[in-house]
């Protein structure tokens, strides 16, 4: 009785297939009956698609965070009924005090298909690697694939530490080359986590930012973004989305209008088995003053897409959080959830 068959998305009219869980164009959940009224609710919260990567499979451990009760085998507290937190739904990383990120399920989605992997050297402002991948929710197992991709990319970026010799431009080229290798590794990780006969192969976006010895290189595939918000200069969007909306913007349609259209979330490039091309488009920048490096998924920028207001938001949030990157990232996630939390939210920050 839940086998609602769509050929077009009921929301935007875009083409969809039976196997799609969400409309690829507008993100509308295609079979909400499976998660709501009139259906056995067992599959509603996707216990059948429990992610398989280590961080995801952490069984519900320890006492209930709400009341201290025992968590039952069904994943709910035996005393207060609170759902045991899934690590995959909300996690944070802080490799060094000046670099941190938070990855959150948001409110509307049943699972967290965003992923985050970051690394940093201890000395503030020295070297940081931030990777965010956003699993495409219309494909299967994107939560597994996105996390594997982000980690594979981070590992490639971490391993290829430049030795500080050569000219600035040769160092920049080396970082760009590593970023491309990281995208290759991320793509391979997605493929490794895709069932060969999947009707809907896993796919995700990719954005990585590398700060090394005053050079900042960012590259992306899809619509996850990197920004540089210097404290005393104009904010810089380091990436251009590979998206329908971005193509519209390129033709002169105002950003606000383009990004609120029915196909605003349709991306034109991604990582995955059916990806046409996954070479990241890169931007290189010399960091000349203190500021915030932000790498994020659309769960954040959906609510604040222009660089200037987003810079203001980050600066104000950071000020309220005492300039602490982890607290700031967490506060930005909370802010996005307060705006509706329509999508998974990932915020990674480096204070440079």
């Amino acid at each position: 009785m839940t086998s609602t068959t769509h050929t077009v998305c009921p929301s935007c009219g875009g083409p969809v297939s039976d196997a799609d869980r969400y409309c690829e164009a507008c993100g509308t959940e295609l079979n909400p009956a499976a998660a709501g009224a009139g259906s056995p609710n067992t599959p509603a919260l996707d216990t059948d698609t429990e992610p398989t990567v280590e961080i995801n499979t952490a069984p519900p451990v320890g006492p209930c965070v709400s009341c201290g009760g025992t968590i039952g085998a069904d994943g709910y507290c035996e005393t207060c009924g609170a759902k045991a937190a899934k690590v995959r739904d909300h996690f944070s990383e802080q490799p060094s005090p000046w670099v941190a990120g938070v990855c959150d399920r948001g409110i509307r989605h049943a699972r967290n298909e965003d992923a985050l992997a970051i690394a940093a050297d201890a000395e503030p402002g020295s070297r940081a690697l931030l990777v965010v991948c956003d699993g495409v929710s219309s494909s299967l197992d994107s939560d597994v694939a996105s996390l594997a991709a982000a980690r594979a990319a981070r590992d490639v970026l971490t391993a290829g530490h430049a030795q500080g010799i050569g000219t600035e431009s040769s160092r920049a080229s080396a970082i760009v080359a590593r970023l491309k290798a990281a995208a290759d590794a991320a793509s391979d990780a997605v493929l490794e986590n895709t069932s060969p006969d999947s009707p809907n192969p896993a796919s995700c976006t990719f954005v990585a930012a590398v700060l090394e010895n005053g050079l900042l290189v960012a590259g992306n595939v899809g619509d996850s973004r990197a920004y540089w918000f210097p404290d005393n200069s104009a904010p810089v969007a380091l990436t251009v989305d590979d998206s329908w909306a971005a193509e519209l913007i390129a033709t002169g349609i105002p950003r606000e209008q383009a990004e609120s259209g029915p196909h605003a979330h349709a991306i034109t490039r991604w990582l995955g088995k059916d990806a046409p091309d996954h070479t990241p488009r890169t931007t290189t920048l010399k960091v000349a003053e203190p500021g915030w490096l932000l790498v994020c998924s659309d769960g954040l920028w959906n609510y604040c897409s222009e660089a200037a207001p987003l810079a203001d938001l980050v600066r104000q949030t950071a000020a309220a959080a005492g300039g602490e990157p982890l607290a700031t990232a967490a506060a930005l996630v909370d802010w996005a959830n307060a705006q509706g939390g329509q999508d998974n939210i990932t915020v990674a920050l480096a204070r440079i």
Partner: protein
Amino acid sequence: MANFTAAVYQNEFLPDGGTDVHAIVTVNCTGAGAAGQSGSGDAGEIIIVDTSGSMGKDGVQAAAYAAQTALDQILDGVWFAVISGNDRAQLAFPPSAEPVMVKMDPYTRQAAKDAVARFYADGGTAMGTWLRLAGRVFATVPTLSQKHAILLTDGENQHETPEALTQAIQAVTGQFQCDTRGVGVAWQVDEVRRIAQALLGTVDIIPAPHQLADEFAKLIQNAMARGVAQADLRVWAPQGAEVLFVRQVAPTVEDLTSRRTAVNALTGSYPTGSWGDESRDYHVAIRLAAKGIGQEQLAARVQLAIGDQVVASELVKALWSNDEALTTRISPEVAHYTGQTELAEAIQEGLAAKAAGDTATATTKLGRAVQLAAQTGNEEATTRLRKVVDIDDQDTGTVRLKRTVEKADEMALDTASTKTTRIKK
């Protein structure tokens, strides 16, 4: 070996500040086997027949024939007895001054049939005494795990007070299950329904004595096909939550809320009697403390248990959302059975008002019943209602009470008021 499965139907999305969670839990049983053959204990069957003077010679003969037909359907090896009741109860078979049961075999079956053939109509009606005797008779066989009776009456319970009947019902509740049938139109539906509901049985009217035998055979066949002697519905609700109600809603509406016994501080157990290969639906309503948008929690664990063994389990969830598209969706199953429950109430209240001469209330209630029967697709109820009211407009529930109504039709509407239809898929 019986196999139970459960499925839950609900809209788990609650709006900001929402507290009440409703769910329909369907429990299905297959492979139940036959009564008394599951290895967990013996089955016992008692046939209770009204032999009061009002039954008359023909009535008693028809009842005796029906009892004989019923005896034919009791499986060999099942413990049984026959009680004849008027203003007091007598053990008609086995012929004994003390309560006793015997096992069915070809010899005892024939002996019982011979005993039943000697029924004669005499005396008054005191059903409480019949129930108490049945309880004592069942108690003589300690190996019984499944105890079922059928009770036939034709008249009002004139020879004992309503309080005495209530006490008798309370005394035997939980000891055995009892399906009740009234023959003719001189008996009181409320009175007999009270017995059936307390003893987890059914109630129905048999308009004419010649229809008795078929009905008795069917009742015993059903009882013999219930290989699961006893099962309980268990409902866990979180600390601080309130179980608003627990109702069986299919095949009939039965409010189980007051039948709760505590398994532990958070879990209640509700007796469901014996099970054959069948499906039953339960409506569970839980009131929670509201949580924040985006939070999820379990509202109930609904389980079927045989003894201490949980054989089927489902989860009722709550998820707070600010998305109206999700929170305003109404579960069709919950809506359907909410309507069917109201339908049962409207019929019973309408008929009670009609009996009390309150035409206005009767017209309103039965009109509402017509409307609900149409909305929920309960065509049987519509058919029965048509015999009591003239329907001007079923969508608005506009009806007129019929000037002349067959008493049996009115009673059939009343006894069948709790029967529900399943939602059309």
